[in-house]
């Protein structure tokens, strides 16, 4: 998040400051703990974990659990590893993110620069759609996807994620364009630019930051979705989260915790990577939906 000056700081003594650092570090450890557990246990043999060494660094370092999780762990019926599901997720996420972001940008443009009576209500309807408990649409959506011949397909999932993502992408672009000077639009109109020319030549070149926010938000949300994947995906379109859950919950054979952890990291890696690289934009996206100003 972009933070300007801070003066809410209080004047504190040495003891208080030490205490503050202590608490902050303690919680940093708390937040890091699961990541640490996943990381160290994904590179050790199973018996080190079951022998009570979950918190220890690996005595024997092995990438075997990663290899297994990625390419030949038993998931469902076949020992395919998570690999095919990873690509399923990619095939679903890329078009869904692209379409919902483009629609959000156009909607935001219309809702701020071509305002009409009732536009705020329409926007409110779109926004509320982001917050509904999706249980309320599961049954009809399953029917609808069946009717449209998209049941169990990646295309169906893309459609679902676009529909329930538009509200947020529209929100981002609307808030961003709302502070974009309307005089620029008027100047362009006088200069003779039409609806799409204004969007393409004037607004879009300045929309970089908010496009990144929207893409990252959508990417994270759709990649991490489980409910829609579990409800609407077919055997060959299941996304990563569903596959990971199947891997972990499978009750056959020995529980291979190290493989589970490696799989969990694999499922987390894309969004984690995005967070590390562009965390600023991710946080902006988080905040945009919740805090005023």
């Amino acid at each position, binding site marked *: *998040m972009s933070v300007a000056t801070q003066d809410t700081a209080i004047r504190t003594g040495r003891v208080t*400051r030490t205490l*503050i*650092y202590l608490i*902050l570090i303690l919680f940093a450890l708390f937040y890091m703990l699961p990541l640490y557990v996943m990381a160290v246990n994904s590179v050790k043999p199973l018996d080190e974990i079951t022998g009570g060494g979950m918190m220890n660094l690996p005595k024997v370092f092995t990438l075997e659990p990663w290899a297994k999780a990625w390419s030949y762990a038993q998931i469902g019926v076949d020992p395919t590893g998570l690999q095919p599901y990873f690509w399923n997720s990619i095939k679903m996420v890329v078009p869904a993110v692209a379409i919902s972001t483009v629609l959000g940008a156009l909607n935001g443009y219309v809702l701020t620069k071509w305002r009409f009576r009732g536009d705020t209500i329409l926007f409110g309807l779109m926004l509320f759609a982001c*917050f509904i408990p999706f249980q309320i649409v599961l*049954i009809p959506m399953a029917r609808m996807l069946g009717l449209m011949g998209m049941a169990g397909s990646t295309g169906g999932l893309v459609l679902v994620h676009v529909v329930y993502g538009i509200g947020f992408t529209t929100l981002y672009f609307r808030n961003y364009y709302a502070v974009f000077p309307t005089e620029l639009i008027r100047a362009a109109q006088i200069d003779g630019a039409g609806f799409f020319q204004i969007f393409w030549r004037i607004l879009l070149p300045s929309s970089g930051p908010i496009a990144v926010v929207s893409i990252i938000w959508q990417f994270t949300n759709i990649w991490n979705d489980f409910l829609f994947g579990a409800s609407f995906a077919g055997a060959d379109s299941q996304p990563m*989260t569903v596959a990971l859950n199947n891997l972990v919950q499978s009750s056959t054979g020995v529980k291979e915790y190290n493989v589970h952890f490696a799989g969990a990291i694999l499922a987390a890696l894309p969004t984690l990577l995005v967070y590390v690289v562009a965390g600023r934009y991710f946080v902006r996206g988080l*905040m945009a939906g919740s805090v005023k100003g």
Partner: protein
Amino acid sequence: MAQAANADFKTRLQSLLPKLVLSPSLALVLVFVYGFIFFSVYLSFTDSRLLPSYGWVGWENYSKLWRLSHWKTSLTNMGIFAALYISVCTVLGLGLAIFLDQKVRAEGMIRTIYLYPMALSFIVTGTAWKWFLDPGIGLENVLQTWGWATFEFDWIKNRDFAIYTVVLAAVWQTSGFVMAMFLAGLRGIENEILKAAQMDGASNWNLYRRIIIPQLRPAFLSAFVILSHLAIKTFDLVIALTGGGPGRATELPATFMYSYTFSRNQMGIGAASATIMLMTIAAIMIPYLYAELREKK
């Protein structure tokens, strides 16, 4: 004098374009959100079981629902979960934000660490905590191996305590986000007000209690709304962490709806439970969104 120059075709098309561009999204939302909501609510008044069916049964599904101990359990669990989740996240978020606001070193890094769980899937979170809390291999086992032979921590397997492990994992995932909301609120407070309060001789404690925290009201409201809607929608985390068990100890309305609709073929009851979830969220979200959108006008 010249003829009245009528608005030509191109100009008229231009004036229609905005609505034309908005309409696909609007149609999608109207059909897939509001149409579907209508359909689901309708189903909750029918005798649908495995498949939608259109025999009208009035309030029967609702009265059945309220007689189900399974539903009551999931509501009780939701009460415990939501109350703890919201309050712990708020207290923790506010506390960490205040501490982080004391011009500490490496603030950026600490913030990054506190917030990264938000980027993870609940399934990943659930998996990590599931095995960490597992008495057989996790914390209990580790501490016993380290020599604390009597240490017991089996909450995740314990009917009376399993719901608290869901709270723990959920707090772990979202409290950093709440912290960020409060931090933004703190940074938004005008410096001069704080200087004035310090001139007035307010102690640190009073400065926060009387001046700063009251000004965070919008952040409190946002946090409450976001957290309560997340609480009601909690589904993936329970599936990954406990699968609703042991027994029904961690069933929530979202998992109840899912199992009644898709595993137990009680679609009418499932739809009724989904309708109740929607109404609850609507009661919180609609006033909030209404206020937000009005202000921005």
